């Protein structure tokens, strides 16, 4: 089982353009987040059906805000802080006003977790809030698993332009999550 130092190392590698390291990091964080989200929802007396929405929204925010991690520090406290922030945010948005007591440190990043149960309903709905081109780019890269270069060739765009559009689309998705009200 990799130690927590490896998480910071993966993020450092990712910062230097190692996509495979970043993918491995995100997979591990997603697994951990799933446990955090489910237990947080249970503790708040909520059904766990929203958990994948929380996982995805938190991953999105973590990705967009990753420059806020100071690479001289361990990664886990930073991950905890963001997961806590987004879980509380999610519960409040869904009308949960009580004090939310979360013990994230009970979860460890090494703990094995149940596999992803289903697709996120929110994410599909959020995708529909994007413009046609942005949605097309996100779907081609995520759902169809194409590379940015591939997508660019198909749309007559440069690879760089596809990445710029993708970045804007991810920011728009995160903003759409933030605006969402029950």
């Amino acid at each position, binding site marked *: 089982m990799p130690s927590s130092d490896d998480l910071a190392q993966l993020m450092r590698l990712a910062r230097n353009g190692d996509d495979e390291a970043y*993918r491995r990091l995100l997979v591990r964080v997603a697994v951990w987040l799933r446990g955090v989200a489910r237990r947080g929802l249970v503790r708040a007396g909520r059904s766990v059906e929203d958990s994948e929405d929380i996982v995805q929204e938190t991953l999105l925010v973590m990705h967009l805000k990753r420059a806020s991690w100071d690479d001289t520090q361990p990664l886990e406290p930073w991950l905890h802080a963001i997961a806590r922030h987004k879980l509380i945010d999610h519960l409040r948005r869904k009308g949960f006003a009580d004090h939310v007591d979360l013990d994230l440190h009970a979860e460890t990043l090494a703990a094995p977790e149940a596999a992803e149960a289903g697709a996120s309903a929110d*994410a599909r709905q959020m995708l529909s809030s994007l413009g046609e081109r942005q949605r097309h780019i996100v779907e081609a890269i995520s759902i169809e698993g194409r590379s940015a270069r591939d997508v660019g060739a198909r749309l007559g765009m440069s690879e760089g332009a596809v990445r710029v559009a993708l970045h804007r689309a991810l920011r728009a998705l995160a903003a759409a999550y933030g605006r969402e009200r029950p």
Partner: protein
Amino acid sequence: MKTEQLLAALVADRASGPRSSGRALALALLAGGVLSLGLFLAALGPRADLAAALATWRFDVKIVAVLLAVGLAFRLCRAVSRPLPVAHPGRFLLPLAALAAVAVAIELADVPMAAWRARLVGSNALICLAAVPAFSLAPLVALLAMLRSTAPASPALAGAAAGLLAAASGAALYAFHCFDDSPLFVVTWYSLAALIVMTVGGLAGRRVLRW
């Protein structure tokens, strides 16, 4: 969309935004500060006896205090722009509080009690209360805009810290115009002006710095 599919999109997006929040923060402060400098030169300008004032300890301490405030508020702003909560953010301002306490003590010892009131009220109090926030406005907007890309543990606190940094930079400009150099005046009115800007920054931050 499945989470695994989302991850592919995240990996493909390599734009990470500014790596060093310190650099981005400095640029925002500079951009807002240049606008305020233009406003300052057009509206007030430095006092006529600047050279003579520089030779007095009260003016020098005032300038040192506002520049120290800029430096400390800058560090505070960086710290509270991160997702991890900062314990006792007020401790960042301890050196400024110490300098203020020493300067006030010297002033009280140096000036007869009968003159304390006149020193405290000064001649420009209301202008100070209006000018410092006015010169803080552009830096505050620029700082809040920059901080939107960060992930502050407390958006309100981050907004207030941006307000403090903006107020310190506004005060750094106004200090060159103001004739009231007594520590009694500076500590009272500059702080009040900063509180106004911090309140505005905190309220704005709670809205615009949510993530």
